[in-house]
């Protein structure tokens, strides 16, 4: 009630002349209740997001849990230097980048394709049923998906290998082969997240005016023409924004997933920054060093997101900022 009435009051007083005449303080005072409303949100972000962020300073320390943050010795860029000189560094970088690229090439378009296909469906009941069904895998935990994968792909009695063996006469050791590791990971991601990924695209598609389609039909456009000239352009800005956001997480490989699928035989391709941070930081207690690795990853993420935003704007697309 009160909010609504305030809004109407604002509209009344906010003439074009008014705003210029008010000083900054007056403006602040005028909307003071809105700012007070904002306060809990700000407190939340400062307290739980920005304050703990100072913890990354640990990366420049030789942190000892017993001495605590304030008493630990400062070591500057030692941890970073050590990390970049480590032979692990290039292996981790390579594995992470390749997985991220695969993810971008194979997983990113998948929800778009599914959304386009769903959009072409005429029967509402059928469309909604399919939509709900493709969401389901999103709610399964990686532990369950890892077990399912294991049951299907194992060489001793797995269903997939039974079929493969029937046709080729040989078994493929999907679970332990370094060559199959990346396809397996991407396959799992596609299976789990594609349906969920369609939500945003379907929402964007719902806003396309039917008139545009009707006009296209009048112009004699077939199904594919309509998709190409009406549906896809309508999705363009959504795709670009999601792509930029995705690039920000470019180096975040699902830790759980990779951790669960790693074994001695595929570790050479499976080790990524996230698993490395876990092994070094949590299991070996090298907190400072693993913080340095994590910080490096975060910085790369920021560079990527700004780079992508810049490129998008160059290409006359709406960016993120």
């Amino acid at each position, binding site marked *: *009630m*009160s909010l609504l*009435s*305030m809004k109407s009051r604002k509209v009344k007083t906010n003439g074009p002349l008014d705003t210029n005449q008010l000083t900054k303080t007056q403006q602040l005072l005028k909307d003071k*209740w809105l700012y*007070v*409303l904002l*306060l*809990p949100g700000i*407190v*939340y972000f400062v307290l739980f997001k920005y304050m703990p962020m100072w913890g990354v300073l640990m990366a420049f320390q030789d942190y*000892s*849990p*017993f*001495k*605590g943050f304030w008493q630990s010795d400062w070591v500057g860029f030692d941890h970073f230097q050590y990390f970049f000189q*480590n*032979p*692990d560094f290039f292996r981790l970088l390579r594995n992470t980048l390749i997985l991220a690229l695969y993810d971008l090439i194979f997983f990113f378009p998948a929800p778009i394709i599914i959304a386009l296909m769903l959009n072409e469906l005429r029967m509402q009941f059928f469309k909604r049923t399919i939509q709900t069904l493709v969401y389901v895998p999103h709610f399964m935990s990686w532990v369950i998906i890892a077990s399912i994968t*294991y049951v299907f792909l*194992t*060489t*001793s009695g797995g269903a997939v290998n039974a079929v493969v063996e029937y046709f080729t006469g040989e078994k493929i050791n999907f*679970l*332990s082969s*370094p060559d199959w590791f990346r396809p397996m990971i991407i396959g799992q991601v596609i299976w789990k997240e594609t349906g969920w990924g369609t939500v945003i695209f379907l929402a964007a598609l719902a806003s396309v005016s039917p008139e545009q389609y009707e006009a296209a039909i009048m112009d004699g456009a077939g199904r594919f023409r309509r998709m190409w000239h009406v549906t896809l352009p309508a999705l363009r800005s959504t795709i670009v924004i999601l792509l930029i956001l995705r690039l920000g997480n470019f180096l975040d490989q699902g830790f759980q997933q990779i951790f669960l699928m790693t*074994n*001695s*035989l595929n*570790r*050479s391709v499976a080790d990524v920054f996230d698993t490395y941070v876990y*092994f*070094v930081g*949590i*299991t*070996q*207690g*090298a*907190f400072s*060093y693993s913080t340095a690795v994590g910080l490096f990853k975060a910085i790369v993420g920021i560079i990527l997101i700004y780079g992508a935003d810049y490129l998008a704007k160059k290409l006359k697309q709406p960016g993120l900022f």
Partner: protein
Amino acid sequence: MKQKKKSIWMLLLTFIISALLIGCSDGETNTSDENNDNNQENTNDSEAEGNGEPTDISIMTASFTPEPPDESSPAWQAIEEFTNTNLDIEFVPNSNYDERFNITLASGELPDVILTGKTPSFINAVDDGAFWDLTDYVDEYENLGQMNDIVKNNISIDGRIYSLYRSRPLGRMAMSIRQDWLDNLGMEKPTTIEEFYDVMYAFTHDDPDGNGQDDTVGTIVSEYEGPWDIMQTWFGVPNKWGIDENGELYPHFQDPAYREALDFFKKMYDEGLVNEDFAVMDPAKWHDAFVNGKAGTIVDVADAASRNQDKMIDADPSLEGAVDLIGAVEGPNGLHNLPTTGYSMMFAISKTSVETEEELHKVLEFMDKMSTEEGQNLGFNGVEGRHYEIVDGVYTPTEDQGLVYEHEDLNQLLTFIPEERFLTAPLQEIEKKEEKVMKANEEIAVPNPAEPLVSEVYSRQGEQLDNIILDARIKYIVGQIDESGLDEAEELWMNSGGKEYIEEINQLYQEAQ
């Protein structure tokens, strides 16, 4: 207007107050819990009047049951009465104990006694002076003074001991074997590696269970690398570090016996004597294959034999006596067995919480008392008449799960120094064998000369270094790499910090001599 303003205020207030409430609720419940604890302790105080004031001791240890005991447990109270203490025990689930240890360390509020592994964080904390050096104190105590020298050496840091270990059998690693399968095939228990190979071969190919199907393997292995470590020790591969003729330490994989062992493993794999999917098999399930009669041997720990046999008998009573135990089989240069470190985590005593020597003595006295027969009975068996009965001189534990939980985790307070003294049910045939095999294994144990040494390189990169070698071993066994691949892995190990590691260990070793 005024009305509206008021309603906005109310709205805001509600928001803020609820936010505050939500934010604080966790903290508040905790503090009220603590208050309860204190109250209960106070009531215990007055009860436990006897020989002097009871000592307050706070302890953090691991728990394995879903419902660890609390102050209301009769066993807990009996321990307090026996040791004249007020205990404040915090049980932390074993699965995330290491994390909690680190967090507790960082919080600065250490309990008097804390369970820890010999982890880099613990060692760093010792360097920073967080824990008492117990070397000169323990000898005053009847039980704690009788620590095993090998284990004492293993837990030491720069030659000093900062903790009380929780004793476990050194010779625990052994192989379980299906005696009934051997009988079916008319074979003897293997005593050498060659015989072991023949038995595995027959177990795989000669239908040892007589069901007419080719559905058995010689031995079962999982993702857990233990069996390979145990088997390679039979070949004479040193336990992590070997000593050459100049008295220098070298990593175990540089020993010529290592390649010999790996060739044997590869042959096992190529001929299907071991399960094909071992590299990806869930370690939580590998014993099932032995229990279900899919595998004829399992190389793990001695006490698995009785556990597995019990399960087998549950399913098929005719399998009584089907499992036998072998400590080790003979390699090219004699009998060798891979020992455990002889302990499972240890208790350290905080210098910040236990400030004076007098207090330290009280804590050590408590730990010493817990090692007496009565202390171990209370900690391990619980209270007679509630948690167990003695029927005709035979120990009979309760089967009521609720009562078991009431005391079971209290056994996490015990060090079993110098030996296990709690009550046990009469041993089965197989359990007697387990004890015999473990005893015999101590004689042929291959100690790790570098066990007490604390390497900085290893604490930083141990996991990566170990993985290079462990992964190469598995890859070689399944044929992903050949001899040259092993060489490459060793080179990578050297370049990834292995060289520094060897140098550091040798230096530490010379200093310790």
